Every structure is written in structure tokens, then in C-alpha cells.
């Protein structure tokens, strides 16, 4: 009796989850194998490489802490892109929104006590820095969102342009008005933020900080938003079929702007958390490439918050472990990008995976392309 109950549960579990988990999992495995072949082809030892990678990512408590440090911004940025995908929008602007979040958070962090003339207690300063930074990201994303809603301008191009504008602005600010005036310093970066604006670390001696908890909380919140609220339903409906949504009485324009705003909020959070939890300042040259990684993570995670978290851990582990791999085996870190690209290829073309492993196709396809609008 118990046995049949358990086997029923397992069957339901697998029936629901196998489609979501199995294909990405197999994609990763296949990419790892192909990556191993690539390493072999260039004269390396794939097993040593992967062992080095694993050791670097999970081998010691410090390594695990560093992997968590890498994964945190990935989770936020991945959620941002995934949320936009769910709403039928492609937010390539995570990079710029992140930068804006970081700039504003650092400004609030180091300048606000000076402006006010007194120190703020951490309980106010930290949420203020994080909140304002994230709002900056939200605003930055709403511009392309509004442009799409009211003029039909496609968000792919507009968010990319906003990226360049944001990076340009950051460059200007960090080399000029916001530059650290300490004569010892020549790099383009802000002064350190006040102690009261910092997110405390989780454990003494490790860099992992409460931001990772916030990230997991954010993942849960996104899930809740999308599947347990009316707004989330509207977002998903607009994403699946904007015309049907309109006929159902949903205000499509408003939904598009809100989706982009939430997405930008999350991306901005990625930037703010890095500033307030890890670096305690904003420096030029940080966060190159988070935007594209976030897209890969969102796709690998099948645009579902849990998937995004898992994918972020995977990518964080790869980035973190790569240096140890290079240290031990002299295999260059670029092989990681090849593997990541392969993972993405197999996930996106899951038809390939299904064909190779003979899995039946089920479930909906992610559809984003609706031409350029207009």
C-alpha cells in the first residue's frame, strides 16, 4: 500500500519535473562531454580539468563561499531576464540596469551621510541604498518598456542602446564627479561606502554575504508574483499572446511597462548587492558580461525562478572554479566559455537533445520573437 503510494508520487514527480529538469540536465551533461573532447583535442586532460574545476568551486568552504559570491548577482540578473521572457520581452539591457543600480547605490552609500550631515543607522541606510539603486534600474528599463508599449520600438535594440548609454554615463561619473579623491587611488572608482550601508557577511572570514539570502528570497518572490497574483497572470498572458490578452481586457501597454520595470528592478538589485555586499564601492570594469551570462542562465533555467537559481549556481561554480583549473592544469579559462556556449546551444535546441536521448517532446515552447513590432 505504502509502496504503491510512493511509486505514484514518484511517477507524478517525474511526470511533472522530468520535462523541465531532464532536458537541461542532459544538455549540461552533453556539453560537458563535448567540452571534454575539446580539451582533449588541445592536449589537455579533461578529467584533471573537471576535477580542478570542481575543486575550485566546491572543494573548500572558502571555495563554496566564493561560488555563492559569484552566483548572487547571477541569480538577480537571471531572474530579471527570465521575468521579462515570461512577459514576452527580451531584456538584453540587464548590463546597463545593473550599472545604474550600482552607481546609485554607491552614491547613496558614500554621499548621503555627508549631505544629511549625520550618520544613518544601518537599518535605514542599507535598504535605502539597495532600494534606490534597484529603482534606478527599474526606471532605466521602463524607458525601453514605454518605447515599446507606445511606439512599438523593439526592446532588443533599445535595451542594447540603453546599455551603451549607461556604460558611457558610468564611465564619465566614475572618472569625474564620483571618483575616489584619495590621492593613493588612480582607478576610476567611487569612494568606499559608509560602514552603515554595507550588507554584513554571513560568516566571519568568508566573503559570502546576506545578499545571497536576498537573492533566494527574490527568486521565491518572483515565483509568487508570476503564479500567485493577478498581475503575474497578466504578465504571463501578455507574454503568451498579447492579442488575446487585449481582448481579455488586460491593459497590455501598462503590463509591458510594468514587466520591464520589475525586470530592471531585479537587474538593478544585482548591481546594488554587489556594491553593498561585496565590493563596498563601484569600480569601472566590474560587471562586464553579466548581461549576456544572465540571458544564458535564464534560458538554461527555462525561465523558471528555481531553474534560474540552479543555473546561476552552475555558472557561478564554473567561473569560480576556472582559475583553480588553470592553476592546476594550465588549461586556459576560455574553455569555460566554450562549455557555457555549448550548454546554451543544447538547451536552446532541445530538439537536438531530444533526438539524441530519445525523449518525447512535451510542453510549450518559449516564444519571444514577434518580429520587430510596429
Amino acid at each position: 500500500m505504502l509502496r504503491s503510494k510512493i511509486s505514484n508520487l514518484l511517477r507524478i514527480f517525474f511526470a511533472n519535473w522530468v520535462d523541465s529538469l531532464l532536458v537541461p540536465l542532459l544538455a549540461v551533461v552533453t556539453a560537458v562531454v563535448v567540452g571534454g573532447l575539446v580539451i582533449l583535442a588541445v592536449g589537455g586532460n579533461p578529467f584533471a580539468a573537471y576535477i580542478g574545476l570542481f575543486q575550485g568551486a566546491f572543494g573548500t568552504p572558502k571555495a563554496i563561499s566564493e561560488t555563492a559570491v559569484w552566483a548572487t548577482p547571477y541569480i538577480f540578473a537571471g531572474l530579471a531576464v527570465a521575468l521579462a521572457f515570461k512577459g514576452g520581452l527580451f531584456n538584453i539591457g540587464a548590463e546597463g540596469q545593473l550599472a545604474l543600480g550600482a552607481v546609485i547605490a554607491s552614491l547613496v552609500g558614500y554621499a548621503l551621510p555627508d549631505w544629511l550631515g549625520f550618520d544613518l543607522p544601518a537599518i535605514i541606510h542599507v535598504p535605502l541604498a539597495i532600494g534606490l539603486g534597484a529603482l534606478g534600474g527599474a526606471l532605466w528599463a521602463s524607458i525601453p518598456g514605454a518605447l515599446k508599449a507606445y511606439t512599438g520600438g523593439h526592446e532588443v535594440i533599445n535595451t542594447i542602446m540603453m546599455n551603451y548609454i549607461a556604460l558611457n554615463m558610468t564611465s564619465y561619473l566614475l572618472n569625474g564627479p564620483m571618483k575616489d579623491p584619495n590621492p593613493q587611488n588612480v582607478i576610476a572608482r567611487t569612494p568606499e561606502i559608509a560602514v552603515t550601508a554595507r550588507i554584513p557577511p554571513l560568516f566571519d572570514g568568508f566573503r559570502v554575504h546576506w545578499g545571497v539570502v536576498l537573492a533566494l528570497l527574490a527568486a521565491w518572490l518572483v515565483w509568487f508574483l508570476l503564479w500567485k497574483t493577478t498581475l503575474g497572470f497578466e504578465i504571463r498572458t501578455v507574454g503568451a499572446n498579447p492579442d488575446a490578452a487585449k481582448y481579455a481586457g488586460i491593459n497590455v501597454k501598462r503590463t509591458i511597462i510594468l514587466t520591464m520595470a520589475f525586470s530592471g528592478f531585479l537587474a538593478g538589485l544585482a548591481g546594488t548587492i554587489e556594491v553593498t555586499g561585496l565590493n563596498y564601492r563601484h569600480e569601472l570594469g566590474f560587471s562586464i558580461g553579466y548581461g549576456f551570462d544572465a540571458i544564458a542562465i535564464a534560458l538554461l533555467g527555462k525561465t523558471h525562478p528555481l531553474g534560474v537559481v540552479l543555473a546561476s549556481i552552475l555558472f557561478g561554480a564554473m567561473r569560480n572554479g576556472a582559475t583553480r583549473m588553470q592553476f592546476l592544469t594550465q588549461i586556459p579559462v576560455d574553455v569555460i566559455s566554450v562549455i557555457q556556449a555549448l550548454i546554451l546551444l543544447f538547451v536552446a535546441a532541445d530538439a537536438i537533445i531530444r533526438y539524441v536521448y530519445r525523449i518525447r517532446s512535451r510542453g510549450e515552447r518559449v516564444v519571444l520573437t514577434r518580429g520587430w513590432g510596429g
Partner: protein
Amino acid sequence: MDWKRFGFILIIIAVLFGAVVLVGSVKQHPIIIIASMLATTIGVATPLTLGALSGIFCERSGVVNIGIEGMMLTAAFFGWLGAIYMNTILGVSPLPSLLIGVVIAILSSVLMSLLHAVLSITFKVDQIIGGTVINILAVGITGFLNRQLFFEKGSIFGGNVPHAPGTLPIIHIPVQEGIQAICNATGNSEGCQIVANALGKLFDQQPIAITAIVLVIVTHFVLFKTRWGLRTRAVGEHPRAADTLGISVERMRYWNVLIGGLMAGLAGAYFTLESVPSFEPIMTNGRGFISLAAMIFGNWTPFGAWAASLVFGAAQALQINMQVFRDVIPANLAFLQNSYVVGLTPYILTMIILTGIIGKTIPPAADGQPYEK
């Protein structure tokens, strides 16, 4: 031909050039400045034009291709690799090496576009995701191979970056001689001499730049004046109707995507075989996306896209020349000294253009939709 759109473009180009002339004319004759800016403009616009043409072919047949960036990068790397291999390992002399490099660049880009075609047309993967995959794949492969072949011992190049066989040579079109002849006949004034020199320099261009302009004309002709072009556009606007008439939608799309790959391959070849003889990871730096913006701005027409590319080229020329003339910028225009402000022009321009304020842009009707029989 949309005159409002063209008018807007001409005004912007005139403003950009005018700003530099205004500032620089204290040091240099305006005609020399304009010629110099035109040279830079054409140089910068070449890969953008080719990228936009690539986009036009793909999208006119109904396939969205945001992987142009990745295709350009792939072509840039493999073309460069091919040229170096020919020159250094096989001992072929520079010019043939470079030409073979161009061929290899185009081939590698076509392969990438084949992948995109297979993913989008046969497997019906979402085209934007497919394009993103191409981009990320390109970055990964080129970065890795760049590292592996040139900086690891034991590779065929022995761990050093060998020296590239230079860049494609400048082709001299005898404009200067022609104008000089007119000058001689009309009294040989100094102004005439300056015009002759300036225009002469303008018409000294490298092969890919010239090819790009020729291809704009060819594309226009092919798309709008041939039966093949008509079929392509039919497949992009009403695939079902085209299918009923016996046109193979899949085949037309495949061909167009491959041609798009060819164009993108030329664009990539420009970077490493014509512009500067070296490869940097991610050297395309977003230009594939700007090409898409040029394509949209040009309303999916070759001449429109070319004009838009020239605008971006002019913006870049503005930025460089403002730096060169930095010391003579008058105080009331001091914001021009700040290269950040000037550098933002192309991006803000793109966004303004996309709002449709200059005129609505109308993509092919079936753009982006996989065709289900």
C-alpha cells in the same frame, strides 16, 4: 524612397560634419576636414552597411537574425587565422593570403548562418534565442581558439602571435588626376587643387569598403527588380500564399539566410583584414546590433540602411575629430570636449529613430514566425 527619412539623415550628417568644420576650420581648410571625416565615415560605415544587408536578406524572407554580431566575430577571427596560416605556415605571399583569408571568413560566417537557419527553419527554435546562441557560441569559440592557437606552447604557431600579412591594399581610383586635369584647364587655382587632393584621397578606398557600396546597389536590384527577389519578399510577407503558388518557403529562407551569412562574413573580414591586422576578443563591440538598428531605420531597404550606417560613421568621425581638435574648441561649446557626450550620439540617435518619429518602420509581415506547413 522615403524623402522625409532621407532628409532627416542628411540633416544629421550635415550637423555632425558642420560641428567639426566649425571647430577645426581655425586650423585646417574646411575641405580637408570634410574629406578626412568622409574617409572615417565610410570606413566605420562599411561593416555596418554589410551587417545591415545581411539582416535585410534574412528578414525580407522572414527570419529574424540577431546573431549578426556573432557571425561577424566568427568571420573576423577565422579570416584572420586563415590569412596568417597561409602567410606564416604555408609561405604564401601577403596579398593572396589576405584574399584567401576573406574567403575563409565568408565560409565560416556562412557556416554559422547555416546553424541559425537549421535552428530557426527546421527545428523552429525561437529565432531570437537562436540568434543569441550564435552570439554566445561565437564569443566562446573565438576566445578559446584565439588563446589556444596563439598563446599556448605546442600549437602550430609556437605560442606567439605571428605577424599578420598586413591589410588589404588601397585601390586608387583616378579621381584626383581627373579633377587635376579640369584644374589645369581652368587656371589651376589653389581652391581647385585642394578639392582635387581631398576628393582624390576620398576615392582611395580598400576593397571591402568599395564592395560594400557596390553590394548596396546589387541588393537593391536583386530584391526589387528580379523574380528571385520578388519570391523572397513574398515568402517574408505571405508565406502561405507563396507556398500555394509553389514557392518552397523553406528553401527560399535557407538561401536568404546563407546570403546573409555571406554579407556578415564580409563585414567580419573588414575588421581583421582591412581595418587593423589584429584580432581582439569581442572586437565587434556591438556593431552587429547597430547594423540591425541601421536596417530598421532604413526600413529594410538597402539604400536606407546604407544611409543610416553613414550616420553612425559620421558620429564616430565626429568623436575622433573632436579629440584631435580638442584644444581649439571654443569655450561656449566646451561640452564637445567631453568625449562621453559626443560618444553617445549614435546610441541616442538610434533610439530616436526607433520611436518612429521620423516615420513608421514596417517590417516584413511574416518576420520572425516559423512557417508551419
